């Protein structure tokens, strides 16, 4: 067994364990921390594929910035433990088998149907220069359209979050 395979299995196990823990935990802050573990382990998997840049961005953006905001909101709202209702029990009764079926189906499709070949390490472009070439040359239009989309989403969030009374009072 090569070192790469061992590391892949270790990071994969952390990923799955973190994801399961995210669902099982009752307290939102524990769930958020499990999600951070999942993201960090995913960054490890990217590193194993030779995609250092994507791994670093994964840690900086997802684990470092977005999850900080999650934790921040949980702290700010002082969100307590999750309450169990009749609905949540029904949801877990149907949700768990449904999710398992979906996961098995997806794994089957990826492994058997899509004809994907195993990728050797460093075979795909992972260097920042190559990624920059892809983003700003081959896929420039989708990239710019996505950035405009994000800008619109930010503006929408600002409009929804601002209080209409406050702006009216200022206008008077």
């Amino acid at each position, binding site marked *: 067994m090569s070192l790469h395979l061992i590391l892949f299995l270790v990071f994969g196990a952390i990923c799955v364990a973190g994801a399961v823990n995210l669902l099982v935990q009752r307290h939102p*802050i524990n769930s958020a*921390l499990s999600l*951070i573990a999942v993201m*960090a382990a995913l960054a490890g998997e990217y590193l194993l594929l030779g995609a*250092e*840049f994507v791994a*670093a*961005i994964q*840690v*900086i953006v997802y*684990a*470092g*910035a977005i999850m*900080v*905001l999650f*934790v*921040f909101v949980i*702290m*700010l709202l002082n969100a307590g433990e999750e309450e169990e209702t009749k609905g949540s029990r029904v949801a877990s009764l149907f949700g768990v088998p449904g999710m398992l079926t979906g996961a098995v189906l997806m794994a089957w499709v990826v492994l058997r149907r899509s004809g994907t070949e195993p990728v050797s390490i460093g075979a795909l472009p992972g*260097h*920042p220069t190559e990624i920059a070439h892809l983003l700003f040359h081959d896929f420039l239009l989708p990239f710019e359209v996505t950035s405009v989309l994000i800008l619109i989403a930010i503006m929408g969030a600002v409009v929804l979050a601002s209080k209409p009374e406050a702006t009216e009072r200022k206008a008077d």
Partner: protein
Amino acid sequence: MPVHVFIIASLIKSVIVLLVLLTGVAYSVWLERKVVGHIQNRWGPTRVGPFGLLQPLADGLKFIFKEDLTPPHVYRPLFLAAPMIALIFALTSISVIPFGNSITVSGYSIPLQITDVNIGLLMILGITSMGVYGVALAGWSSNNKYSLLGGLRASAQMVSYEIALGLSLVGVLIQSGSFSLRTIVDAQGGHFWGFIPRWNIFHGQLIGFFIYLMAAFAETNRVPFDLPEAESELVAGYHTEYSAMKFAAFFMAEYANMITVGCLATLLFFGGWHGPIGGPPWVQALLPVFWFVVKVVCFIFLYIWVRGTLPRLRYDQLMSFGWKFLLPLAIVNLIATAIAVVW
């Protein structure tokens, strides 16, 4: 290089760097007490050893032997994990920092750096961005309103200033065309007109450096941006409920972060280990490391000097300074650098 030589060399380097870093942390505390003392017209530590030089040892012993209180109302798992998270990430970020050229030991060329990765700068940014969790979780798990406010302030402040910090570094990246800290330093060798060193700060990144400096002060929660632990309003902020070695862990993390920030500023803006070199071969091998350390110590002195001089900002001033002044300035600096390089 065979694998066993690589492993042995890495182990030796890790141990030395960690020891030097921890000693540096201890003596930055001593330097801070001494310099702030003189700024405020008093002596600072004088009793333990000559010039109070053994004071860090005494402080360390005191931290170890103090009673380690855990208040009953805290959320225990995270309360215990938070100081560890803060210290681990603060110490890890030193691993990609190069502090000199390579040296040759019995035929093997060993770079003076624990590990040379080609995305070194991004790794430091990633590790320091994870360091926020230590402070935020400490504030939350303490179950104390002062701690919570401190933790909230710290996380909001660090997220806000991270953007300006990152953008201020992009100018340097555009000029050198690499994420590798070693390549960035190598690009700064030589002189303009024979006497001005070719450091990035004299190479059009003066504004970039000042943005970096201010954002870095905010990232490390130091005066004038030390609102997360503002003692006049928040008791001690996020570490109010911590005592003994757990408190010391936060303290050490703060100073280790200061040293990392100083190292990064030296590498990116002040030419790293470049400096006048001469003398016999062994002196020539060690002088780069000496210049690097001298530049980092200058930064730590600057930190302490600012702490002894400036008052603390108000929270709204902090936020509007970060978002309305530093961020636009960083964007302008980035665009100007990009235009200058393409020209």
